[in-house]
């Protein structure tokens, strides 16, 4: 294991490399107001982050990552375009795997630039790839934007699309919703009974709590509308399932996706973006013919990414977490920007893990 001093030295070296690439070095506080993070991620972040509090500022979290504070800082005072780099500790509660670190050093590079998203994606990926060069790692890539475009383009009701979009990052619930909207899973008997009833509130008991009768009536209306809507068609459904299963080297993945776009034309623009990104990656010297692409990659772990996603994994050490991860998070800037937004992409890596894998080669 690399010592803390070695890890910090490597972190400083990596950050200097990102500075040389044009990034402004920045610092963020370790204590972050819990409210923003809880609002974004709900209980999942509470299970992952250390929460503490004082009487004056209320609940605070030990920085679980840099992205949120960096975006907040940029949205308040950043010039455009902007490139940032940082290095420091992040903290993660570990309750299931004692072997995973609860405190480690992260180094990151983030780009806020409206001009050419494909080039910005490629810039971040290539810089991170260069930083981990020499370590026995395999890159995985994906694009959440393609799946989102597919859902938005489905020939079904806006309510169903919104429900699917909400669960892009929870594959099991996404699957359950899809089965229901396609008419493949039976309607629960309680729901059939509710919809058949002319006076559903007849035996309901007193109205207690903050969720009021108007909300219940509204949901019953939504359920009635849903029951009346036709199921998602078999062609679209098959195409969506083929899309989710795409796992190939990038050029073959693109070809398969083009084929799928015949039945899901809404993914067309997202495929142009993928193609432009692959071109930009190739221009930066990345061997895209050997680059893995998985359409479902990033759905379980990277909830704020909504476009390009990537990770670098130790091929012979499946027990280790990824050494580097990153992706595009345009929507996050919208959520934190209070009315403003800017396309953003970034990546982080773990110098400690990197040194362990390099085994003193550096």
């Amino acid at each position: 294991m690399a010592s803390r001093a070695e890890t910090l030295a490597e972190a400083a070296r990596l950050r200097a490399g990102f500075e040389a690439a044009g990034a402004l070095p920045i610092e963020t506080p370790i204590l972050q107001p819990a409210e923003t993070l809880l609002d974004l991620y709900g209980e999942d972040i509470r299970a992952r982050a250390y929460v503490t509090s004082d009487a004056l500022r209320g609940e605070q979290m030990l920085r679980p990552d840099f992205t949120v504070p960096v975006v907040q800082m940029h949205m308040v005072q950043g010039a455009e375009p902007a490139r940032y780099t940082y290095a420091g500790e992040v903290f993660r509660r570990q309750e299931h795997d004692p072997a995973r670190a609860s405190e480690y050093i992260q180094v990151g590079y983030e780009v806020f630039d409206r001009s050419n998203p494909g080039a910005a994606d490629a810039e971040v990926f290539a810089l991170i790839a260069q930083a981990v060069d020499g370590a026995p790692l395999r890159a995985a890539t994906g694009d959440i934007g393609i799946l989102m475009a597919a859902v938005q383009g489905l020939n079904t009701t806006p309510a169903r699309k919104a429900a699917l979009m909400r669960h892009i990052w929870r594959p099991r619930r996404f699957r359950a919703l899809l089965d229901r909207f396609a008419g493949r899973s039976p309607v629960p008997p309680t729901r059939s009974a509710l919809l058949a009833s002319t006076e559903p509130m007849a035996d309901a008991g007193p109205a207690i709590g903050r969720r009021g009768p108007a909300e219940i009536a509204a949901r019953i209306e939504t359920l009635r509308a849903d029951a009346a809507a036709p199921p998602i068609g078999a062609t679209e459904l098959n195409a969506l399932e083929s899309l989710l299963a795409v796992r190939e080297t990038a050029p073959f993945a693109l070809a398969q996706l083009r084929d799928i776009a015949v039945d899901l034309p809404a993914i067309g623009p997202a495929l142009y973006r993928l193609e432009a990104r692959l071109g930009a990656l190739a221009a930066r010297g990345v061997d895209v013919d050997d680059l893995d692409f998985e359409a479902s990659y990033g759905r379980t772990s990277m909830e704020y990414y909504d476009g390009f996603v990537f990770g670098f994994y130790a091929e012979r050490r499946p027990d280790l977490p990824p050494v580097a991860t990153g992706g595009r998070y345009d929507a996050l800037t919208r959520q934190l920007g209070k009315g403003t937004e800017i396309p953003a992409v970034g990546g982080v890596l773990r110098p400690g893990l990197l040194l362990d894998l390099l085994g003193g080669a550096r």
Partner: protein
Amino acid sequence: MTLKLGVPSKGRLMEKTFGWFDRHGITLTRSGSDREYAGSVSGIDGVDLVLLSAGEVPRELASGRIHLGVTGTDLVHEKLPLWEQQVEEIAPLGFGHADLILAVPRFWVDVDTLDDLDAAAAAFRARHGHRMRIATKYHRLVHGFLREAGVADYQLVDSQGATEGTVANETAEMIADITSTGETLRANHLKILSDGLVLRSQATLWRSRTAVVSDQEKAALKALTDRLQ
């Protein structure tokens, strides 16, 4: 040293535990006055009785300060991460049955399943500007259950007692709590989600995997477990 057996120090849980051991020929007695938490064991050698609150038993087992302990499955699963590595289940005792369940107001006629709950939570958050609050003291179990089910847009608020009242008081929209007969739920106009069973719990005898065991204690443990067969 003697083998330490931790048993809840009061109430029906203590009495029923005493009764259960009694049926296996081991007599546990609480000595002195009602206020004194000391006890003795007869019918078997080398075992000491430690009386403590049922809520403390998991922690004492995990730290190895007691070798054996009686407490509910719910408390062990909630309080001990990776509980299988820290304790071993020796015997369910057949009493103290309780289910950890999710319950919502009975007048939510549109919510019967987790699928309904998730959709209602999304609409609730959009309308009220905060997540749907679930009052509970079982944070780990409930979060794990809801994450597994893919339910989003809720938040857990801590409630260490009178949890069923939180909905009427508007400090929570729904609850996750232990129930045995469901009567308190009904009295508070709440109903259980049809797929909202988080955990079935009962009083259980556990063995600590972390406690250091001397040869003498090992012999006492064997004698005790043989007796329980």
